[in-house]
C-alpha cells in the first residue's frame, strides 16, 4: 500500500514523490572495473535485492522488517549474502577469455525456507541456493564440540543432541551448473511460469532447460545462417510470458520482436507473431538500424503487454497488435542530433534496460548523466531524476531534472553538451509490490522510495 501524493509544480512529474533512501558501493570516483554493476533484480516478494557485477560477484540485500509503529519509511536494505558466482575462464581452443561478468540474475519463487536464483555470465548459468543457518546441533555423544571423535569407551551416559541458537549465517551454494550449451554470448535468462524450466538466449540461439537437468538442453530458436557472411541480425533479449508457459518472446538488433509458441513446433524458427513498427521516413539516417536495435524486452505483470527499449525510446506493445506499439515514450530525443558522435564513441551501442512497476501503471528506464526516467501510462506524465550522492539526505524529495536540447538554457536545466556520457544508468529494478526502486550507476546502487506520510 502506498500513499499517492500530488506533487505541486512538478510540471511533468508523476504523482509519486521519490526520496533518496540508501546508496551502496564505494564513494570514490576511481571505479574498480570489477565493481561495475551489471545486473539488478528484486525477488518475487521484494524482500531481497540481488546485484551482479563485472567481477563475477553476487551481492544480495535484505529488507529489514518494518517497525510497524514508526513507519517513517520502509525497511532499509542491508547486505544479506555475498558470494563469487562466476570466475574468469579461458577457452584454449578459441584463445578467448570468458568474462566472469554476471549478465543476468533471475530469482525463482520461494518454495521453502531457502531462496534460489539463477545467475549467468556469457557462457554458463548457475543455480544458487541461499539458505540461512541460525542454529546448530550440540551435544553429540561420539563427537566433541570441536568435531574430534571421542573414544567410545569413555562414553558412560547417552544424551540426545539438541539444536542451539547461533549467529545467523547465510550460505550460498551452487546446486546446478548449466554449461557448454552456448557458443555465443548469453544475454538473457527467463524462468518459465511452470517453475520447472527456463530459457537462456545468446546472440543466435535460444535454449530451453529443465532446472533439474544440467547435461542437456533443447534448442528452440536458431537464427544462425549457414553462411556467417549473411548474418545481419542477432537476438538481443528473450523472456517467457508470465502466465502462458508455452509462450516466449525474443527481440532482435533490427527492432523486431517475435512471439513464439512452443506447442507449434519443437524448433520455434517460425514466429507466431512478429511485432515491428514501420520506420518513420523523415527520421531515416545511417543510424536508423542501430538505434532501432532493442536492448531489453519485458512483459507486464498482467501478461497483456510487453515493453521494449531501443536507443532513444520505450515502447509498449499490446500482444494483440503486431503492427505498431500502443504507446511510445521518448527517453532522450535530444540525442538524435548527436548520433554520429555517439556512434564514434560507441555509446550508441549501450544496452539500456527497462522495468514495470507492480501495477503496470508506470515504466522506468535509465539514461546518461546518471539520469533515469519514469513514464506514467495513465496520466501521461513523465519525470527525470538523478542518482547522485548530492541528494543523499533521506526523506528529501528528489528534484526533477530537465535537459535543455537547444536554445537558451533555463536555470537548473542541463544542456545536452554538458551531459556526462560515462555516467550511464543501464540497470534499474522496481519492487514488485511497493514504490521502492533500485537504480544502478556505474558502481553504486541507489535505493529510492516514495515519500510516506
Amino acid at each position, binding site marked *: 500500500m502506498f500513499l499517492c501524493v500530488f506533487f505541486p509544480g512538478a510540471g511533468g512529474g508523476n504523482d509519486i514523490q521519490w526520496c533518496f533512501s540508501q546508496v551502496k558501493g564505494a564513494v570514490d570516483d576511481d571505479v574498480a572495473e570489477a565493481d561495475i554493476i551489471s545486473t539488478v533484480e528484486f525477488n518475487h516478494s521484494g524482500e531481497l535485492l540481488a546485484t551482479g557485477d563485472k567481477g563475477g560477484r553476487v551481492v544480495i540485500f535484505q529488507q529489514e522488517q518494518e517497525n510497524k509503529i514508526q513507519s517513517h519509511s520502509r525497511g532499509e536494505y542491508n547486505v544479506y549474502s555475498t558470494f563469487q558466482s562466476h570466475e574468469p575462464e579461458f577457452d584454449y*581452443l*578459441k*584463445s*578467448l577469455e570468458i*568474462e566472469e561478468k554476471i549478465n543476468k540474475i533471475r530469482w525463482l519463487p520461494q518454495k521453502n525456507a531457502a531462496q534460489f536464483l539463477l545467475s549467468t555470465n*556469457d557462457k554458463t548459468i548457475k543455480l544458487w541456493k541461499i539458505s540461512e543457518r541460525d542454529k546448530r546441533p550440540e551435544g553429540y555423544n561420539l563427537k566433541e564440540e570441536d568435531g574430534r571423535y571421542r573414544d567410545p569407551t569413555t562414553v558412560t551416559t547417552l544424551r540426545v543432541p539438541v539444536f542451539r541458537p547461533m549467529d545467523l549465517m547465510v550460505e550460498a551454494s551452487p546446486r546446478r551448473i548449466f554449461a557448454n550449451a552456448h*557458443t*555465443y*554470448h548469453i544475454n538473457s535468462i527467463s524462468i518459465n511460469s511452470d517453475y520447472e524450466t527456463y530459457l537462456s538466449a545468446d*546472440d*543466435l540461439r535460444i535454449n530451453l532447460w529443465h532446472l533439474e537437468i544440467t547435461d542437456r538442453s533443447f534448442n528452440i530458436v536458431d537464427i544462425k545462417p549457414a553462411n*556467417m*557472411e549473411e*548474418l*545481419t*541480425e*542477432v537476438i*538481443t533479449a528473450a523472456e517467457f510470458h508470465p502466465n502462458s508457459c508455452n509462450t516466449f518472446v525474443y527481440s532482435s*538488433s533490427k527492432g523486431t520482436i517475435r512471439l513464439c509458441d512452443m506447442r507449434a513446433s519443437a524448433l520455434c524458427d517460425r514466429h507466431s507473431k512478429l511485432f515491428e513498427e514501420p520506420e518513420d*521516413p*523523415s527520421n*531515416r*539516417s*545511417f*543510424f536508423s*538500424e*542501430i538505434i532501432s*536495435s532493442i536492448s531489453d524486452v519485458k512483459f507486464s505483470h498482467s501478461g497483456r503487454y510487453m515493453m521494449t527499449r531501443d536507443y532513444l525510446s520505450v515502447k509498449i506493445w499490446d500482444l494483440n497488435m503486431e503492427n505498431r506499439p500502443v504507446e511510445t515514450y521518448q527517453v532522450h530525443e535530444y540525442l*538524435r*542530433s*548527436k548520433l*554520429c*558522435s555517439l*556512434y*564514434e564513441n*560507441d555509446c550508441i*551501442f549501450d544496452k539500456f534496460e527497462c522495468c514495470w512497476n507492480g501495477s503496470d501503471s508506470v515504466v522506468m528506464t535509465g539514461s546518461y548523466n546518471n539520469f533515469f526516467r519514469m513514464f506514467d501510462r495513465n496520466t501521461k506524465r513523465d519525470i527525470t531524476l538523478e542518482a547522485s550522492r548530492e541528494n543523499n539526505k533521506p526523506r528529501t524529495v528528489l528534484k526533477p531534472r530537465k535537459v535543455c536540447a*537547444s*536554445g*537558451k538554457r533555463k536555470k537548473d536545466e542541463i544542456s545536452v553538451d554538458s551531459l556526462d556520457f560515462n555516467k550511464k544508468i543501464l540497470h534499474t529494478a522496481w519492487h514488485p509490490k511497493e514504490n521502492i526502486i533500485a537504480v544502478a550507476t556505474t558502481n553504486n546502487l541507489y535505493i529510492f522510495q516514495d515519500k510516506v506520510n
Partner: protein
Amino acid sequence: MVGGLKRKHSDLEEEEEEKWGWGPAGLRSYQQALLRISLDKVQHSLGPHAHCLRRHVLIHNTLQQLQAALRLAPAPALPPEPLFLGEEDFSLSATIGSILRELETSMDEAEHPPNPVTPPGPQDEALPQPDPVFLESLSSQYLGDSGLDDFFLDIDTSAIEKEPVLAPPEPSHSLFCAPGSWEWNELDHIMEIILGS
C-alpha cells in the same frame, strides 16, 4: 555557436558551391567519413570488443548501407580522383565478408581449426585489411583539396552569437547535410578528425 555557423555557412554555400558545395560532394565526404570511422571500429574491435557480435553486425550493416549509398551517389564536381569506392576491384564487401568469417572461426564450434583472434597483423588472410589505396585516397583527396582548406579558414567563430537553432530545412535527400543542421556540426567534427590524423 550553431547560429553563427549557420549564417556563415549559408554565405559560404553561395561562394563555395563551385569549389566545394554542400550538395553531393558534402554528402559524399560525410559518408566517406562515416565509412572510415566504421572501418576503424572493425579493425580495432578484435580486442576487447571481440566477443560483441551484436556490435559487429550493426557496424557491418552500417558499412553495407554506406557502400550502397556511395555507389548510388553522383560523382562529385571535383578534380577527378580515382573513385576507389564502388569500384569492382575494391573489395569492401570482401573485407566485410572476411571480418565475419574471422568471427565465425573464432566463435563457432570447433569444426574449424583453432584460429586465434589477434590484433591486425601482417598478411594473415583471415584478418581484414582495408584496401590501402582506399585509405590513402581518402586522405589525399580531402587533405590536399584547397577548397576545403579555404573553407575552414573562412569560418569566423569570433562573430558567433547565441541564436535559437532553426529547424533544419526539409532535405530533398534524407541524408543531405543541410547548412546549419546537426549534420553540419557533425561533419565539421568528422573533418577535424580526418584532418587531424
